[in-house]
């Protein structure tokens, strides 16, 4: 988060115009204001550091070469005067911006209704975001959308009385002038504080605390899927109907076959049946490996049967399952363990045989 242009950028300024924080997202007001500040500072820097000295030097030069020529001296006078006036105007403009922004953004805790009221209203805690808020952070109120009226989540995480609306929970009653918002769906202010829907953050304000409110991001309450990342010998997930162990067992594979082939499917195709013959994507290759288990055309012809006989069915999850079962039942796993076939298939066989 970038402090809201409480002061103009220091001069001379040779830094980057666009803040680093705003180069990876849609720029918010904080970044916009900073860019404007930087452009002004850079322009003034160029004027004072480069243009003004050159103008003064040129004026001095005219004095030297026109010791008695009145028109030449007048021209030199005009250049020097214009240069000095230009410097004064440029610095005065910068000074005005600095003063105005400082006045508008400094917190006045003593005078109720002072300028801090509207600046605080606009910018919350006196700061502005570098990036535009994501959909999950922006309440429907901020988007000028109608209150949500649809049904809530099938298995609710919104508090009672709230309706899920995108990634937030909304409570709107007839006659309300505005809806109430609670935490984004799946988040909590576990560190304490109140959720502010317009910023998407948890806020703790202490009365009399000159440091103002502190903010923190809500903590996700989603249970993260962990524990299987990076483990060699991974099998298709239980929900991948193309090659999960349970799917293969349902198709007639033994437990050993199902575990082994589920592992091989991950290595061969990432468990994705929609992999066309390899030589379609790689025309220089002769390989026709296709489908969940990357069975080549000649092998397919040898083991596929019924409605799966034609090789055009090689991206069918069902035909892959059936054909692979016939193949390994008759031929074992040697189609995967040949010297140049698959360096990791043997690991699956060793692990799950």
């Amino acid at each position: 988060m970038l402090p809201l242009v409480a002061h103009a950028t220091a001069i001379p300024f040779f830094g980057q115009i666009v803040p680093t924080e705003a180069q990876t997202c849609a720029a918010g007001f904080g970044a916009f204001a900073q860019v404007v500040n930087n452009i002004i500072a850079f322009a003034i820097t160029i004027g004072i550091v480069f243009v003004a000295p050159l103008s003064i030097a040129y004026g001095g030069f005219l004095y030297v070469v026109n010791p008695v020529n009145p028109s030449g001296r007048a021209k030199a006078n005009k250049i020097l005067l214009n240069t000095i006036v230009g410097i004064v105007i440029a610095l005065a403009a910068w000074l005005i911006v600095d003063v105005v922004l400082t006045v508008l953004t400094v917190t006045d805790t003593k005078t109720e209704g002072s300028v801090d009221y509207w600046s605080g209203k606009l910018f919350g805690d006196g700061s502005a975001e570098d990036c535009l808020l994501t959909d999950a952070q922006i309440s429907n109120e901020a988007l000028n959308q109608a209150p949500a009226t649809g049904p809530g989540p099938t298995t609710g995480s919104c508090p009672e009385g709230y309706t899920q609306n995108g990634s937030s929970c909304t409570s709107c009653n007839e006659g309300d002038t505005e809806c109430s918002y609670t935490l984004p769906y799946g988040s909590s202010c576990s560190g304490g504080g109140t959720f502010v829907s317009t910023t998407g953050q948890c806020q703790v304000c202490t009365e009399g605390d000159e440091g103002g409110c502190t903010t923190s991001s809500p903590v996700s309450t989603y249970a993260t899927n962990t524990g299987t990342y990076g483990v060699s010998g991974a099998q298709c997930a239980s929900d991948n109907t193309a090659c999960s162990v349970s799917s293969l067992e349902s198709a007639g594979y033994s437990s050993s076959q199902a575990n082994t082939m589920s592992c091989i499917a991950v290595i061969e195709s990432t468990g994705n049946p929609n992999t066309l013959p390899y030589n379609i994507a790689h025309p220089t290759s002769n390989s026709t490996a296709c489908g969940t288990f990357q069975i080549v055309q000649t092998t397919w012809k040898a083991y596929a049967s019924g409605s799966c006989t034609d090789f055009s069915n090689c991206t069918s999850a069902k035909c892959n399952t059936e054909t692979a079962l016939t193949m390994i039942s008759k031929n074992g796993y040697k189609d995967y363990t040949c010297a140049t076939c698959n360096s990791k298939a043997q690991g699956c066989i060793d692990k799950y045989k």
Partner: protein
Amino acid sequence: MLWGTTAFGLIIVIAVIIYLVMPDAPAPAPTGTPSLPISDATGAQNGQTTGGTTYMVPISSGASIATKDFLRDPATVSDPVNPGYYYLGYHQSTGPADATAMADPPYVIAYIATTHYFNIGLYQEPIGQVRKEAEQYLLKMLGISQEAACALKYMVSVPEDVNAIYASQNLGFSFCPGATILPK
């Protein structure tokens, strides 16, 4: 001086107010490999939508995550061979040409509607970069946070012919705890 300062302040205030009430700019599209179209889905209700634009995706804990109705996005195609399979963006196809079909896609995001499972395959090197592109596309397509994505039922993997070292693993999303760190 006072009038000048006040007038200047008012100009800033008016400019700020105009800026704040302007509609939001769209988020940047995924970069790198050819960007895929993502539209603002506005579909009718069905058994799993709320409000016509939201799709409920059950996660492993039994709860559900509200996403954009990505199944109605024009960039999502159903698999004519495998009923219930959908491809979000890139995919291979021998059927009628569509905007996101290509012979050699950098990644494929498959969604199996019956089990609400996302299968992400990385099919080109550098797989670290390709994984990031796939993640960005999926987050944008679903309109969810990284935290929510970590709770999806999903798998990220790479075939052996693309990268023999990282094959045979669930690589996870790069931003999820425990995910495999890939070379950039």
